[in-house]
């Protein structure tokens, strides 16, 4: 799925206060591309992602997917939230099967489908577990499987690994790249972590502090699986960090 953002701005109104969080974003995301939106906290990057998901709407400008306007949320654009978002009253299997259930798929068929995705994220033994029995990393794995089960054309991810420890985070990044290579969906991944962006993305779009504007774009030509210790990796990280002004 391809996306196009034309002169997108977003202003939040709260009583008498106005806060401009996103300013004049022009961006095209190609079909099958892995794009990272990188910016400091409070750079409007989550807002951009939410607008692409149809969870928020631009104050100005327009967003299109495959040429048509984004008018609301759709299972074709899977979303993985930063907070843990699994339904606590459903076990892993029923969480992953939720999208298929609301689509009206028969129980047998949707469980079969859901199990494939649970297997993809390596949680087959936990299909009957409830979210409170899972670690943070496992919860986000399930959240990814839950989005993938709807067979989306794009996956929108809002700092999904931010709360995880480094080791878990690296494992999940590696798995995500594999899933992306197998399923070839477009992924738009929001993060404030330079290392994460360089490891994952085909292209890193760097945003400024509020109101978020695009200050630079980097193409990551490093071959996957990327080696964090390689000179090109380290150099690019440094270059992006300088632009960010951390």
């Amino acid at each position, binding site marked *: 799925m391809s996306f196009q953002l034309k002169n997108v701005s977003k202003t939040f109104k709260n009583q008498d206060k106005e806060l401009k969080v996103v300013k004049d974003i022009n961006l095209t995301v190609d079909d099958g591309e892995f794009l990272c939106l990188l910016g400091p906290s409070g750079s409007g990057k989550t807002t951009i992602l939410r607008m692409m998901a149809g*969870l928020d709407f631009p104050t100005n400008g327009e967003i299109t997917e495959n040429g048509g306007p984004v008018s*609301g949320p759709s299972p074709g654009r*899977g979303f993985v939230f930063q907070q843990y978002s699994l339904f606590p*009253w459903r076990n892993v299997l029923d969480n992953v099967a939720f999208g298929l259930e*609301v689509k009206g798929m028969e129980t047998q068929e949707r469980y079969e489908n859901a199990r494939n995705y649970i297997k993809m994220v390596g949680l087959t033994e936990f299909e009957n577990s409830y979210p*409170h029995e899972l670690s943070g990393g496992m919860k986000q794995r399930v959240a990814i499987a*839950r989005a993938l089960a709807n067979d989306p054309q794009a996956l929108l991810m809002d700092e999904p690994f931010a709360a995880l420890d480094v080791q878990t985070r690296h494992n999940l990044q590696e798995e995500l790249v594999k899933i992306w290579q197998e399923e070839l969906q477009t992924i738009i991944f929001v993060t404030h972590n330079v290392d994460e962006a360089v490891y994952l993305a085909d292209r890193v779009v760097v945003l400024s502090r509020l109101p978020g504007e695009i200050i630079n774009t980097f193409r990551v030509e490093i071959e996957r699986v990327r080696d964090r210790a390689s000179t090109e990796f380290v150099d690019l990280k440094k270059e992006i960090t300088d632009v960010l002004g951390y």
Partner: protein
Amino acid sequence: MALIIPIIILIIWGILTTYTGLIPSYLIPSPYAVLQAFENLITNGTLLTDTVSTLIRVFLGFMVAALVAIPLGILIGWFKIADDLSGFIIGILRPIPPIAWIPFAILWFGVGLGSAIFIIFLGSVFPILINTIDGVKRTDKVYIESAYTMGASQLQTLRKVVVPAALPNIITGLKVGIGIGLMCTVAAEMIGSDNGLGYLIFTSTSMLDTASAIVAMLVIGVIGLAFDYLFTRTERKINW
């Protein structure tokens, strides 16, 4: 541990009424008199019939209250327009004591079961309603948005996400509701009932048989405790 204070009360009560005679028996009957009244009410079968008929009334009033308050609460909690429309009227109706409705209960439902159910309904309905509204409103936004991004319609989101998310609050509402319903039994059974624990309380009091009244009061207390225990257990089980 929980029994320490009741035992102390029982001892003081016994000393004051039986051994020292400081308090005459028409003011507070002695524990022994209460025990005798209990035995008497058991053997002649009144206590069982009264308990069962009160339980039926409370249960019916509570059921109607739940059937009205839960759907209404979901509606009000979800649709802002329903909230705006109902907030004021609920605010006015809620503080009115159920006992104040007795004349209207008689006019509308006649003397008998209908009126009793109506009074208990009035006691139960507001706690269930308020807690349901609150539970729906507090549903974590991320659950609702997750449902939408997975293609759920508004109705599906309500049924499959908002209602289960609000369930712990709804259970709390039911717990408080049945307790208050039980508190209304005396008022409810003042209208045209010829049995029930409330009825037993005011008829025996009017005949100065305070010992029997205390028996009925204690039975209401025990029933309330049992309901509370059941709902609290359910609350713990579905605490998310």
